[in-house]
């Protein structure tokens, strides 16, 4: 149990660091990169949490989260490509 807890805390630290990059920016792409990273780490966190609480059902949720994260990033990129002003992507 302890090792799952440690892994979960470690993943949370990674997510916090990714959030720092998300807040710092400077361009919208850095932020999307950070969001994508937080998303994949959330997938891992859900999987580890499933083992921590001994409920392997959580793996379905992890898979779903990974899927939604991927489609979300693709959708945001499509939006950015349409809307972004090429000269000033940091304004978004």
């Amino acid at each position: 149990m302890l090792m799952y807890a440690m892994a979960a805390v470690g993943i949370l630290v990674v997510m916090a660091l990714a959030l720092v990059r998300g807040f710092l920016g400077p361009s919208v792409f850095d932020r999307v990169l950070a969001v994508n990273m937080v998303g994949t780490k959330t997938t891992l966190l859900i999987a580890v949490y499933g083992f921590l609480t001994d409920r392997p059902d959580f793996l379905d949720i992890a898979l779903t989260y990974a899927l939604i994260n991927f489609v979300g990033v693709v959708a945001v990129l499509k939006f950015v490509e349409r809307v972004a002003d090429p000269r000033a992507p940091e304004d978004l």
Partner: protein
Amino acid sequence: MALLLDLLSFAMLLGGVFLGISGAVGVIRFPDFYTRIHAAGVTDTLSAGLILGGLMLQAGLTLVTLKLAFILMFLWITSPVASHALARAAMHSGWHPRLSD
């Protein structure tokens, strides 16, 4: 045997977390967007692989392991696609990389 397996999966989880933190530090530390993608790549490939691999060792030869393998396959297919789409979108928006020399 069980102890050995526990130790091995503990080592894998620890290694995965270490790589994750390394990648995150790289994402903060590297100078421009395109170099940060490489650092994020570390957390998406080997870090995820080690963490899920450590869990697989604990689950043994069951369908849980298989589901973990599905998650890993999905992550390894989608995260490079996302990185590539991100880099491509940035390049198309005229966000030029900082190159050495």
